[in-house]
């Protein structure tokens, strides 16, 4: 058992921290305020190899392990949760299913531009009537010669409208229930595929969250990932991996809020003393730090298990459950310790508290994680 990061991980953290400090942090407030997707940051993320960290070099990636990728999402999210989720959704939800379940041709055609950052990816499972009940898919894909014709719509799709490549789920055989769901790759400029309403959100406001609309959208049969009927399984396994990414995002948000708070309580004086002199402040900080560290252990362990090709779904669920709830608790306490200033947009903890909430909801709500964990206990 060894808790030490490898030297390469330590050097990666140095890179991620420098990059985040200079290229991400200065824009975090503005992209939140204006709900603007961080296009310029994306260009730099691409240049420095952030968009394909865990994929092999032969597919355009950096050839890193899962932890290398997770550390990036964590560090970016310390300053800007939007940037964290852009990378996480792109990597875990679009690149990963193509890498893990796609054909060699699909990897060369789609994973290479995704991993090199030439193209941005998104993943579409959720529908208006299929949220946690993901099996209730209504989008259909009908085989027509060498093509599939897709009809239906998806909602709440991260990176939508900006992404070039989408991994989507659609029913190919309704009579089979979840075994009638299939996964497809759809390019953004495919006729019949349009972007619908963009959501106005509480947090991660720089990220683009939109509806996808398919109206007789024709895609070649080569874009089916795996076999027909395997879509639900692909989606669930993809989300298992994605949860480690979101857990890392939550961990980053929590750590970022704690760092801000530590600085603040040393500066802010009340009753003639800095807030940090009061035992209430100290105890709050101690609890925040301890929970963050516990979350970090869960997140890194889940990353380690996935990297080692060991079962990890249960640990990914625990990591996401605990890290996201820690993010919510820590950011709420951070706002409280900032007092009135924490409630204003003058300090970043207000944004961090809004950003934290989504980590308890997307890529499986906290309740879904509890279902997964309990099912593992009771099986």
């Amino acid at each position, binding site marked *: 058992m060894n808790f030490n990061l490898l030297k390469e991980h330590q050097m990666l953290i*140095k890179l991620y921290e420098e990059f985040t400090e200079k290229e991400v942090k200065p824009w975090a407030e503005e992209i939140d305020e204006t709900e603007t997707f961080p296009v310029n940051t994306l260009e730099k993320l691409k240049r420095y190899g952030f968009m394909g960290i865990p994929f092999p070099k032969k597919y355009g990636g950096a050839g890193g392990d899962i932890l290398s990728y997770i550390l990036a999402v964590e560090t970016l999210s310390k300053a800007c949760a939007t940037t964290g989720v852009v990378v996480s959704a792109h990597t875990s939800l679009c690149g990963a299913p193509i890498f893990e379940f796609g054909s060699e041709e699909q990897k060369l055609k789609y994973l290479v531009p995704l991993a090199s950052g030439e193209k941005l990816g998104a993943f579409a499972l959720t529908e208006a009537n299929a949220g946690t009940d993901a099996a209730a898919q209504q989008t259909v894909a009908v085989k027509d010669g060498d093509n599939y014709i897709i009809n239906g719509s998806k909602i709440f799709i991260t990176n939508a409208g900006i992404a070039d490549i989408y991994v989507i789920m659609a029913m190919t055989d309704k009579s089979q229930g979840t075994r009638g769901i299939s996964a497809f790759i759809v390019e953004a400029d495919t006729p019949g595929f349009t972007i619908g309403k963009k959501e106005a959100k509480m947090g991660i406001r720089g990220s683009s969250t939109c509806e996808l609309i398919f109206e007789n959208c024709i895609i070649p049969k080569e874009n089916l990932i795996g076999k027909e009927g395997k879509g639900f399984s692909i989606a669930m396994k993809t989300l298992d991996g994605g949860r480690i990414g979101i857990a890392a995002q939550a961990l980053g948000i929590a750590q970022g809020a704690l760092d801000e708070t530590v600085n603040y309580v040393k500066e802010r004086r009340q009753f003639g003393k800095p807030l940090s002199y009061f035992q209430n402040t100290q105890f709050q900080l101690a609890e925040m730090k301890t929970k963050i560290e516990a979350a970090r252990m869960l997140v890194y362990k889940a990353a380690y298990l996935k990297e080692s090709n060991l079962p990890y779904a249960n640990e990914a669920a625990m990591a996401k459950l605990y890290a996201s709830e820690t993010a919510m608790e820590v950011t709420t306490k951070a706002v409280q310790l900032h007092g009135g200033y924490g409630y204003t947009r003058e300090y970043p903890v207000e944004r961090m508290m809004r950003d934290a909430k989504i980590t308890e909801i997307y890529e499986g709500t906290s309740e879904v994680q509890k279902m997964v964990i309990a099912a593992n206990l009771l099986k």
Partner: protein
Amino acid sequence: MKIIVCIKQVPDTTEVRLDPKTGTLIREGVPSIINPDDKSGLEAALRLKDEINAEVTVLTMGPPQADAALREALAMGADHAILLTDRAFAGSDTWATSCTLAAAIQKLEYDLIIAGRQAIDGDTAQVGPQIAEHLNLPQVSYVEDLKRDGDALILKRVFEDGYHLIRVKTPCLITTLKEMNEARYMSVGGVLDAYREKEIEVWSLKDIEVDHGNLGLTGSPTKVKKSFTKGAKTAGKLYDVDSKEAAKIIIDKLREKYII
């Protein structure tokens, strides 16, 4: 084009504190960085590499921990890295350092040698120029801009009150200023390659030919007699006046001290 960049691993002086009793640097817990002037020199070399496919070798003399600075340089895009390390080199002043580095460079092929102007922990600005002298090379110090001109370089050498544009034929040595450029970040793939695929050549005393009388503490003519912390300045005086009055007070004070 073959370029050798001399770098030094230094404590990040923005995070260094002084021991108030001894007046020495407290180095524990202080992160190490590539000296900023050297990093810009490396960036200049990497830009030449982007432009004309130059081959960039980074060279440092230091303790084994200097490995991290070399890995960082590799992760930014340098091709090769050499660590000169030996107990015999410990305690070197600028003379011993430049003798050792020059001896190592003599074993290598080069068209251009780049060194940062000066290190933030020593501030001597002597090592680069001394290497040029040992190797009988033309040198241009305080370089803030570099352009290629055939097999020569056109360099902007900056002074406090102006600059020179100097055309110099290679091989030559230049010393670079931090202000020269904004150094790139490492890349993710670069970091992974730096640890997994690239190797750092470790050279010790037996790998270079150098007069042993010029090595380490014994070969260093510089002796530090005393180091001390500059006394704190007295608290200033505060005036609560309007800007007109403030300007008058400043001018009077400057006159009083014969500054104007």
